[in-house]
């Protein structure tokens, strides 16, 4: 639901993006918990969308090593695999 809300807000081209900004702050603050759970899909939505990419790109690049560590522990985490690909492409 949160992912869809971020997507819906970004689609209207609202320059304020208040909700997306809040979600970016929450997921980045609780980064480790988020990437180990379904929060990874919110981060993925934020990073995939051109309008919201700037909200998370810097921090995601900085925390790339954490993502790689989690992926080593859990190879089957599809969301994490895609997120890492996106971060590498940033």
């Amino acid at each position: 639901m949160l992912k869809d809300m971020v997507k819906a807000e970004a689609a209207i081209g609202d320059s304020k993006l208040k909700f997306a900004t809040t979600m970016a702050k929450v997921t980045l603050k609780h980064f480790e918990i988020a990437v180990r759970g379904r929060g990874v899909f919110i981060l993925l939505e934020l990073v995939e969308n051109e309008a919201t990419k700037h909200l998370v790109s810097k921090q995601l690049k900085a925390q790339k090593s954490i993502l790689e560590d989690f992926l080593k522990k859990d190879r089957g985490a599809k969301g994490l695999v895609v997120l890492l690909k996106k971060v590498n492409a940033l």
Partner: protein
Amino acid sequence: MKEAFPAVLASKDGLRVACALFNLLDAKDRKLVVKSLPVGEMATNRIAHLFLMHVANNLDDTQLTKKKLMHEVLIKLDDHIDDTNFRNVLNSALVPLEVEKDAAGDVYYKRNSFVQGDDLHAMSLLLNKSTSKKDRKVRGAELFNIVRKPLEMFFEEKLSYYLLDAKPNLVMKNLFVGIASQGEAGSSDLCDEMVR
């Protein structure tokens, strides 16, 4: 027709007939029919609720939609929120039914996540001959605004329960996504409460 509509809506063929006839009626006759509908009972009926969705998505009279149709649905919110048919009526107000044309020029309701394809097909008879003049996007926005406030109040009261409910509530999801798509997720009390 005023007398026959509730009986007609006992079968899927009847639904086809009712929806087709409603498409052909002019605004004055539509008003007569809508005023005579037992909306509260129809909203939980397996077939009749589909007709309500069709009416809500084709009626041009916003006040009639608000004061008769959605009002009678919303006063039953507490009692019937767990009923799938009732939820579908609310979902069709939050995510209005879209239409598409096929190669032969016939107009059909597009598939969506809450109504089965054959039900949508049954509701689409003579949709291309509809007397409705209002733009679907405009009607959709009006419908959303009619149900938004009462639903926000309802879910705000029981937010923790519905957020923790194992069975996902599509009405709540559509409400949140609808608010976000209006760009008001940042200023909505309900969204604020949910994020907290």
